């Protein structure tokens, strides 16, 4: 047990609390001094956007390894050539040349990929600009329409573009031009996209329903979904490279997993019902329908992501529209009697 502590006395005066900041004194300015309206400070405004967006990942390590390896490798190989030449070692020289060209080809394809990634980014920027059309002046809106036309690869005498030009008047505001763009340039593509999604997801559903091997099913579904996203993108004037395809696909999946969850909940009851019905028909039909629905949902998401102007609430395509088509296809598959058992009329 420790000894009781002896009495200690402390000073009664408190140490002055450190003042956090010098208070500024009153200052008066002459009325003649130049002044301007108070603007919120730039860094305060920039804060939320910077902190809300996803952190930007730069793979410096990978870049370092790739660039370092490529340069050092090609330097090494190139410096070896004179030696090999002087010693007349033709085989070594051939290998060195082969190595250099390999590195060159790799670099080229890498650059191409980067270019396509940039195109995806440009598409995003165009999307952003087009969304702001209502605030733009008529002239800006017109030039943006031209840009969209180039993106969609429409020629000058394309009937849709001509119809748009006919409809467009100098007094139309940005918002009105956006409406016209939607109707004249995008609606035909939307219809095509819709048809594509219905067809592709229907075929996927049928394939899964009749294929005997689960593993093959999975590979088929993945392959076909990728192809569908690819085609959708091409419809909206977006050419995908390997990396940009991966990025878009990741975006689509991300979107489906998070943003689409609430939508899923509203659709779920109908989905359940149709799955139940299909399950009654046969287990395989049920599986097929489930896969078809998933694939259709994926297609709709992808469409929504690559359409240059975002959908309004009314024109947004709904899964319900596609479900009926899918259901019809599956049913037809099930109903189609084999020739041997066809009932005689």
């Amino acid at each position: 047990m420790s000894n009781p502590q002896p009495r200690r006395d402390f000073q009664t005066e408190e140490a002055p609390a450190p003042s956090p900041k010098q208070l500024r004194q009153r200052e008066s300015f002459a009325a003649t001094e130049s002044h301007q309206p108070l603007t919120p400070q730039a860094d305060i405004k920039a804060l939320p956007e910077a902190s809300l967006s996803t952190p930007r990942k730069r793979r410096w390590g990978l870049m370092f390894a790739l660039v370092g390896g490529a340069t050092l490798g090609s330097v090494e190989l190139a410096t070896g050539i004179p030696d090999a030449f002087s010693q007349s070692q033709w085989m070594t020289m051939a290998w060195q040349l082969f190595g250099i060209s390999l590195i060159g080809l790799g670099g080229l394809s890498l650059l191409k990929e980067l270019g396509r990634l940039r195109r995806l980014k440009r598409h995003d920027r165009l999307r952003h600009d087009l969304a702001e059309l209502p605030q733009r002046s008529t002239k800006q809106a017109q030039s943006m329409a031209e840009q969209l036309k180039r993106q969609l690869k429409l020629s000058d005498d394309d009937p849709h573009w001509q119809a748009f030009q006919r409809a467009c008047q100098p007094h139309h505001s940005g918002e009105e031009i956006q409406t016209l763009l939607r109707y004249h340039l995008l609606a035909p593509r939307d219809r095509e996209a819709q048809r594509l999604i219905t067809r592709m997801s229907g075929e996927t559903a049928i394939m899964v329903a009749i294929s005997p091997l689960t593993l093959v099913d999975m590979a088929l579904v993945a392959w076909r979904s990728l192809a569908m996203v690819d085609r959708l993108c091409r419809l909206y004037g977006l050419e995908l490279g390997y990396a940009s395809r991966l990025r878009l696909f990741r975006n689509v999946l991300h979107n489906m997993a998070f943003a689409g969850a609430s939508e899923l909940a509203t659709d779920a009851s109908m989905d359940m019902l149709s799955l139940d019905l299909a399950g009654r028909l046969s287990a395989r039909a049920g599986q097929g329908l489930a896969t078809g629905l998933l694939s259709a949902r994926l297609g709709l998401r992808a469409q929504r992501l690559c359409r240059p102007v975002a959908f309004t609430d009314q024109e947004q395509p709904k899964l319900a529209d596609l479900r009926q088509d899918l259901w019809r296809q599956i049913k037809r598959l099930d109903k189609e009697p084999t020739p041997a058992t066809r009932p005689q009329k």
Partner: protein
Amino acid sequence: MRQPLSRELSNLLERGRDRQLRLAVTGLSQAGKTAFLTSLVNQLRHAGVEAQLDLLPVAREGRLLGAQRLNQPDLGVPRFPYDPGMAALRATPPRWPEPTRGISELRLQLRYRPAQQGWFTPDIAHLTLDLFDYPGEWLLDLPLLQHDFYSWCQAQSLHEGPHRKVLFSEWLTEAEQLDPAAEADEAKLAALADAYAQGLRRAKQAGFSDLQPGRFLLPGELDGAPVLQFFPLPELNAPKETLEALPDTSIYATLAARFRYYQQQVVRPFYRDHFRRFDRQIVLVDVLGALNAGPERFEDLSHALRQLMQSFDYGKRSLLTRLFAPKIDRLAIAATKADHVTPDQHGNVVQLLEALLAEPLKDLRFADIPVKALSLAAIRATEAREVLHEGKRTPALKGTTLEGEDVLVYPGDVPNRLPKADFWQQQGFDFPSFRPMPIDSAALSHIRMDAAIDWLIGDKLI
């Protein structure tokens, strides 16, 4: 106004199915009501063929089959002079349709294909649109219904600007000497009423809008009747009770009796027969004309419109209100003659219009009525061009003035809110007036008529 039972029933049925709309085209005189109606009928009749209606989805998608004039419900009212109006526009040189001098009606039947085929939707649906034209001067009588003679006199003396006082000076010097309690002298009252009417006419010439009573300007069949021989008494200082107690032969009582008669026998039937049953409304305002006229007249217009919009019933529609007490559930406010400024000024015109109607818009917002403000030209009189002037590209208008002179002009900027009074003294506005362009196709060219039609009836054409 009794109608045969069968017509009454069929109207009721159509209204119940919401296939009949009555559109109120509201505007003071010179605001462009007749031009709007002529153009509306023209566009709908030519929809799907020549008319450029790209902002109207039903026409853009080719589902609108057109419109036909039907026999109007009330056979006692003249038909809207569509053909004379079109003839004036087609004449060489083209003229604007004649200003309206009386009431007229028109019933249009629109036929369209519904967008979605359902169990109960027919292949081709129709919508009946009732239109109604009247002199804008009479419209300002509607606010009279909320007054009695005493409060009317007070209200009239409230908004007298200096400029306006000058126009009425002749009448004012005489009327100020009148003793309300004195014995009424018929001849003197008639002379004074005449002087008052003269003042109103002068004020109208000078560009004022808030002019009551409207029949003084355009008497119609009432010309010379004693009902039009009254006027407000200026400087009424005595309390209302003492004035009311005056004998029947006094000036005050005589004027009040005539005012009451005018209110009950002229204004109320006009309101009851034509203004109660509206479903949709468009308010046309000639903002540019008001800017041309100057600050006092601009305020005057704002005041007139504020008063006017209190005369309409706004509210949500349901089956019951639709059948028995229709209410306006959607409203467009439009700055007309938008073709008289360059397209880049349209945004400012709309903002100025919203500033002009700020007070009524607040009330409408409170009542939760959707309102859309737009700038439109029912019949386009100019062409928008671009001029290379001193090395700079500026927009300009090409058209023919009312005097017949071909001009290429930049009419000036439109402010987006009312400028201060000294601006008018320094610079002022001088927006030119144009006569209509010669018509080369069957449909009239316009600015944003399609957007207006879409907003007013587009939701019934799905």
